[in-house]
């Protein structure tokens, strides 16, 4: 036991590497939160566009663009996308956190689009007809009638996506971003202690994920009690 404490002291304190853990964690949180925000915005735009353009001939090209986006993004590994964004599209920027946030956001948007679309489709078709028959436009009915009802179907799946996203950002180290994973890995590399840095990193991820899962459960329960149908 004392031997292990000595080792911890040596690896994190005496080496002066401990501060890398909160630094890395902060970057992980920034990237995850930013990507989630971008993902929700892109996902909503695409899902609503696809929903409203169904059966409207003039909007077919826009639908096609949405479909291509979803297909391409979901068909390429996120690490490859990250490398492309960092070394090709944003080659002039060396702000890895920024590039990673954008990449994960655009990536997440494709998944969010599908989540939100299935939520919209879960709302009874009669709701759109009722809105339209009162004289509301498609967009007005979407905003006032369909989206508010779809949210209860969407929230749980978005929570899962949030958790998946947090873990996915662990590959940000590929483009020299010091996220939580890379922080642990750097300490391992510099102290020749493989066990403890990786253990700490793994524990931090686990604690955050469990906390997020608990939060989602809570929100789901709140939504369920608000359900007066």
């Amino acid at each position, binding site marked *: 036991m004392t031997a292990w404490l000595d080792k911890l002291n040596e690896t994190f304190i005496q080496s002066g590497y401990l501060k890398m853990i909160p630094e890395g964690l902060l970057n992980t949180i920034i990237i995850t939160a930013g990507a989630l925000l971008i993902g929700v915005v892109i996902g909503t735009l695409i899902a609503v566009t696809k929903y409203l353009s169904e059966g409207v001939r003039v909007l077919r090209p826009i639908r096609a663009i949405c479909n291509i986006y979803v297909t391409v993004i979901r068909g390429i590994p996120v690490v490859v996308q990250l490398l492309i964004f960092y070394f090709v599209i944003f080659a002039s920027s060396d702000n890895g956190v920024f590039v990673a946030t954008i990449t994960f956001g655009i990536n997440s948007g494709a998944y969010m689009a599908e989540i939100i679309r299935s939520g919209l489709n879960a709302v009874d078709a*009669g709701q759109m*007809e*009722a809105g339209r028959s009162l*004289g*509301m436009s498609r967009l*007005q009915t979407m905003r006032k009638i369909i989206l508010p*009802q779809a949210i209860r179907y969407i929230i749980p799946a978005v929570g899962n996506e949030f958790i998946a996203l947090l873990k996915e950002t662990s590959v940000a180290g590929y483009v020299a971003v010091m996220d939580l994973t890379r922080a642990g890995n750097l300490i391992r590399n510099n102290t020749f202690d493989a066990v403890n840095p990786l253990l700490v990193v793994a524990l931090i991820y686990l604690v955050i994920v469990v906390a997020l899962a608990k939060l989602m459960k809570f929100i789901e329960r709140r939504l369920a009690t608000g359900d*007066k*149908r």
Partner: protein
Amino acid sequence: MISVKNLQKKYKGVDALRGIDVEINRGDVVCVIGPSGSGKSTFLRCLNLLEVPSGGSIFFEGAELTGKKVDLDKHRQKMGMVFQQFNLFPHMTVMQNLTCAPMMLKKVPREQAEKKAMELLGRVGLSDRAGAYPAQLSGGQKQRVAIVRSLCMEPDVMLFDEPTSALDPEMVGEVLDVMKKLAAEGMTMVVVTHEMGFAREVANRVLFIDEGKIIEQGTPEQIFENPQSERLKSFLAKVL
């Protein structure tokens, strides 16, 4: 008020409507009867273009709804519609269901919209349910609220798509009573229904539709007492 000319509707190659011509005048109460799958609901849903016709034209108060440059949303505000499944907005209270469209579309101030809604709710006997959510209402109450929701937009015509078909038998009467009152007040109504008693009592014209065509039309007396076509005779023999 509504003039339908050679209305046609094809669903994936199947002819749901095969040329319907009809004139609906102000104050008319037109009941549409016919067997399941005859096209009577499709006909009704074409009137406010919830279904887009494949051919023919529909004129409403002089404007061609099937025309290219028509502001459909504007005209739909004048055509109330009541659905078989009620289609109330479940995330809103009864009051919000009633005031949502007038406030958004006609810019009626909240106070005025709520006053009007309360008055109409009172007339269908539901003043005490204004704060309830649709899930807390019985089927008959839901349908009465749905009727009031349309009335709050002050429509010139009301379209009813089998308004009592999804109701428990003991609740049919309360909805039909509301519709009778509406008819007595002079509302123009087009009602797709299986309630032959209602058609006979309230309608001033009855259309019998089968296989996408009007087979016979006339006053309730003509249709129910003195049917001409074999198809109408056999239909009536089954339902009466």
